[in-house]
């Protein structure tokens, strides 16, 4: 039997959830025995080369590229998991949800303490290559269907390990009190 295929992505996140995955420590060796990785920043595979079994999504959607990547994952992965607060509810990036995008851009590029004097011409990044910010940051399940949710900022390594092995082996996921945390 071939191994299940795992893919991962970081959308509007800080890579903390991926770091937490590395917190499984030496069990990473066990993990590579259990699964093969496809598209993921961990192995730097940039494009899906085959359909996958499990997709782990860190971060919500703050721009059109995030939406594109998320939809691509939904297309290629049988099971899609929201990993961490940002994927689940937008997380800290969603703190901007009450503000107009123009306010955020002006604060970041024109009026912020580190840009105010450095950007006298008032340049705003507008290259066509750059993704376009959405009106707000969206939780993943408000963009595509997500199958499972693993909360935490970042989720505890034990939760990630428990969930991954349960999915791979088809066991029911156990959720002891101390692994569910939102911070």
């Amino acid at each position, binding site marked *: 039997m071939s191994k299940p295929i795992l893919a991962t992505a970081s959308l509007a996140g800080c890579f903390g959830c991926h770091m937490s995955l590395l917190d499984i420590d030496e069990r990473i060796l066990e993990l590579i025995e259990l699964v093969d990785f496809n598209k993921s920043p961990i192995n730097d595979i940039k494009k899906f080369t085959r359909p996958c079994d499990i997709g782990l999504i860190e971060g919500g959607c703050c721009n059109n590229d995030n939406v594109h990547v998320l939809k691509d994952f939904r297309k290629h992965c049988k099971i899609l998991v929201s990993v961490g607060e940002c994927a689940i509810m*937008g997380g800290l990036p969603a703190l901007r949800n*009450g503000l107009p995008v123009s306010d955020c851009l002006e604060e970041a590029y024109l009026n912020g303490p580190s840009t105010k004097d450095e950007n006298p011409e008032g340049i705003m990044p507008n290259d066509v290559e750059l993704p376009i910010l959405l009106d707000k940051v969206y939780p993943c399940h*408000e963009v595509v269907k997500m199958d499972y949710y693993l909360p935490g900022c970042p989720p505890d390594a034990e939760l990630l390990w428990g969930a991954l092995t349960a999915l791979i082996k088809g066991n029911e996921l156990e959720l002891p009190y101390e692994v569910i945390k939102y911070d």
Partner: protein
Amino acid sequence: MSKNFVEFIIDGKKCMSEEGKYIIDAAKDNGVYIPTLCNIEGLKPKGACRICSVLVNGRPMTACTTPVTSGMEIENNIAQIEGIRKTIIEALFVEGNHFCPSCEKSGSCELQALAYKYKMLVPRFPFMFPIREVDASNPKLIKDHNRCILCKRCIRGIRDENDRSYFAFKKRGHEVEININHEMANKMTDRLARESMDICPVGALLIKESGFRTPIGQRKYDHLPIGSDIEK
């Protein structure tokens, strides 16, 4: 001194308590935890949040406002009731802006602790991301309306020597919010500011110039679920 004691049943367990006690307190006396949010010991119950809903002789009632009577059959830890509680918790999470990772109350917050207890992984409702204000204009206290669950614990519990409340509701309907009386707040003592923060079940009232003092791992609900002290 003559007190009338009554017998009643919670989830099949025979219990005994003084007649007239609220179900919440009677249950506690018998080692049974019924979750609360708006209720706090020592204050007149309000019945606002409905998280304490139980079935009393088959009908949903709020345990914080219903006195226990002889022969009552109360159902607490049953699927129907847990379903109601989980729904309320999820609704509260999407109704406000609860960014737990950046909240000072995280780890000691009663709303969050209940969400942990009922294993909320994601709320079933869409997030509303309402636009809410933070009021930092008072010398001792910050009020973050993003996290307020309108339980009125602050209004009911924090009063001056003339029994005047420091807090009040302003506006109506879905716009209702907590208002701090500026004149009184200007004279608020450190002790009362601390008590305000403590009486708030969530992170809507925070004392200024001090924060994140308790390390992760030592906070109230880091290791044991809310109610563990009652259900020994």
